[in-house]
């Protein structure tokens, strides 16, 4: 008999020992505990990140570009503060430069500059950021794009810090 049994029989066994019965109350307890654990876990991860960010040394200023390298409406890719942090430097007008981290705050896809809309656009999940402030305009991201603080020294553009 056992060999000809349909596969669902394994899920609904006649044998008492093979049955893994879960009562509604047990299931509710499980759900509550798991969601509580997830809540605490994400809270701890967030706190740790915040603590680490506060303790992190202020990144050293770095010369990233020269003014004549970028046309108005142009983009330059650079890495700041470490070589693993891709950033975009945008020239909005003659002497108005902004720079943001290129990692979308949703799932870290690289954002691209859309000149016509004056937006930074993440093509992965249609995230849109304002080019002036880095604020989220639309899409799944919830946090602003980290902004790179800039300083203009003569012809040179320096990155002086990251504003999250």
């Amino acid at each position, binding site marked *: *008999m056992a060999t000809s049994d349909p596969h669902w029989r394994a899920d*609904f066994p*006649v*044998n*008492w*020992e093979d*049955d893994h*019965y879960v009562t*509604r109350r047990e299931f509710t307890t499980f759900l509550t505990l798991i969601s509580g654990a997830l809540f605490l876990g994400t809270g701890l991860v967030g706190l740790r990140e915040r603590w680490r960010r506060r303790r992190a040394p202020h990144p050293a200023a770095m010369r990233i570009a020269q003014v004549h390298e970028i046309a108005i409406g142009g983009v330059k890719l650079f890495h700041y503060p470490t070589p693993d942090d891709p950033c975009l430097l945008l020239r909005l007008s003659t002497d108005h430069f902004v720079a943001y981290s290129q990692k979308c705050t949703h799932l870290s896809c690289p954002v691209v500059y859309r000149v016509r809309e004056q937006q930074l656009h993440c093509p992965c999940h249609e995230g849109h950021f304002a080019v002036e402030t880095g604020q989220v305009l639309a899409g799944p991201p919830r946090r602003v794009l980290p902004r790179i603080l800039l300083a203009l020294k003569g012809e040179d553009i320096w990155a002086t810090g990251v504003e999250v």
Partner: protein
Amino acid sequence: MEFFIDPSRCIGCQACVHACAECESHRGLSMIHLDFVDRSSSPQTTPTVCMHCEDPTCARVCPADAIKQTAEGIVQSALKPRCIGCSNCVLACPFGVPRYIAAMDQMMKCDMCYDRTSIGLKPMCATVCPSGALYYGPRETLEKIRREHPTNTFVFGRQVVKTKVHLMVGHETDELEFDVASFLSTSSPLAGED
């Protein structure tokens, strides 16, 4: 310790019915069936407890996964949180054992007094039966005091059912065959003899 039923010894005293109703787990509700074989022609009665099939049909047909068999081979009553009161088991059991209790909207059946037999006691019905129609004990003892032979293989058409509980029959036999179709066409098993 095994259970043996000998309907030929039943005297219809109802002791088993009342003893069953005194069980701790279903007080006031008797799970045993005590039936007249053919009331118009004979006073013969026959007790039916659950035969505890090795492959229980009631559990097989349960759509709510409510009937379970323990490792000892005892088929339990429907699990209360699962039973939906559909009576599939009542219709499917070849021995007519499960009962649908409308007031509770669920099935209950003989569980061979699982609370008692699992700790080595006899089932309630077997402790009170005065004629030995319901016997629970070692097979060797039974064989010494009885002429009848136990059998536990029943053939219902194409379905062969092996049971934990034995039925005592007059002759030695490997299996008892039942002509299900003829039972369906006549209401009385003795009707054909007229």
